[in-house]
């Protein structure tokens, strides 16, 4: 995993997510508050069965953070498929279980 830097694309969506907080629901407000108060806004998720600390606010940001941007992968969060086009709108929460898969040999 890469250390969070200014260039990290993952950091941007997170910053953005704080701005429209006034329009957010109570649940989202709580989540926003949690992420802003936690140290450097990192939280733990599980990626492909391994624990992973991230500051990615969305699945799309996480995929970028892991260097899969532009790579043909498919994703699921907590057992549900997330199409590539929906990753940007899929917020991540602490404890989320994320699968990132690609093509392989099969029988």
């Amino acid at each position, binding site marked *: 995993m890469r250390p969070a830097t200014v260039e990290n694309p993952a950091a941007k969506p997170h910053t953005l997510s704080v701005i429209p907080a006034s329009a957010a629901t109570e649940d989202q407000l709580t989540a926003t508050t949690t992420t802003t108060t936690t140290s450097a806004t990192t939280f733990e998720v599980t990626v492909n069965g391994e624990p992973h600390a991230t500051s990615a606010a969305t699945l799309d940001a996480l995929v970028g953070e892991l*260097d*899969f941007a532009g790579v043909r992968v*498919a*994703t699921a969060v907590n057992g549900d*498929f997330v199409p590539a086009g929906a990753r940007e709108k899929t917020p991540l929460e602490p404890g989320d279980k994320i699968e990132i898969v690609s*093509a392989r040999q*099969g*029988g």
Partner: protein
Amino acid sequence: MNKIDKIPGDATDDALTFYGETVSSRMLLGTALYPSPQVMADAVKASGCQIVTVSLRRETARGKIGARFLELINGLGVHVLPNTAGCRTAKEAVTTARMARELFDTPWIKLEVIANDDTLQPDLFGLVEAAVELGRDGFQVFPYTTEDLGAAERLVSAGCQVLMPWGAPIGTGRGLANPYALKTMRNYFPEIPLVVDAGIGAPSHAAQAMEMGYDAVLLSTAVAKAADPVRMATAFAQAIDAGRAAFCSGLMQSRDMAAPSTPVAGTPFFDLDGSASRRGGKS
């Protein structure tokens, strides 16, 4: 009921169609377990198969493994049939199928819901549940199932236009463990494409399935793990062609007692001993 009555006599018109896609080869080949990607590609080419099975797995090397494999497969110019191998529940299989559809850009899915590790046998309840959901979601499902006719009926009701009963458990190479049940299934579903999937170890097993009237055979380990996979792929292709041709030609019925194949009339010395009943047959 006997499918032989429905077989077209013209061998040149003997194509096979899955969900509107017509193929001329009756072999479906796996892409895993080969000694190298190149040997796999060569075996696929040698087999002449037009459908290969593929899968998906957790990506670790920044997408390069998957990308390289996709490039290799796309270069083969064959249909890909992604599987849901390793899935234990309908939910896992459905999610895997959806990921596969996006990765491979195909509505086809070889649906596997596995019941246990020792037999890798289909969990028929989970299989039907997943087939129903995937059918509603526009998938074209190739279910890996058993010879159970009740489950098969439910799969067909769920929209499956092909059934893939096992020959024997995956990777065993034991051939057709229950020929009687497979024959029954063939007769029960004369119009639905049936593929024997799994358990095929030798070309003779594949030929046996084809002689029974199965439409195709799906195999993997028997070719991939052969000392010479490319030559074994050819051997299977020949066996499948031979079995299909034999089925289309109308196999003779077996019988318990011998019947001379050389005409009896005019046999020299036939009446020398004057006996009405001669012992022994003529060949």
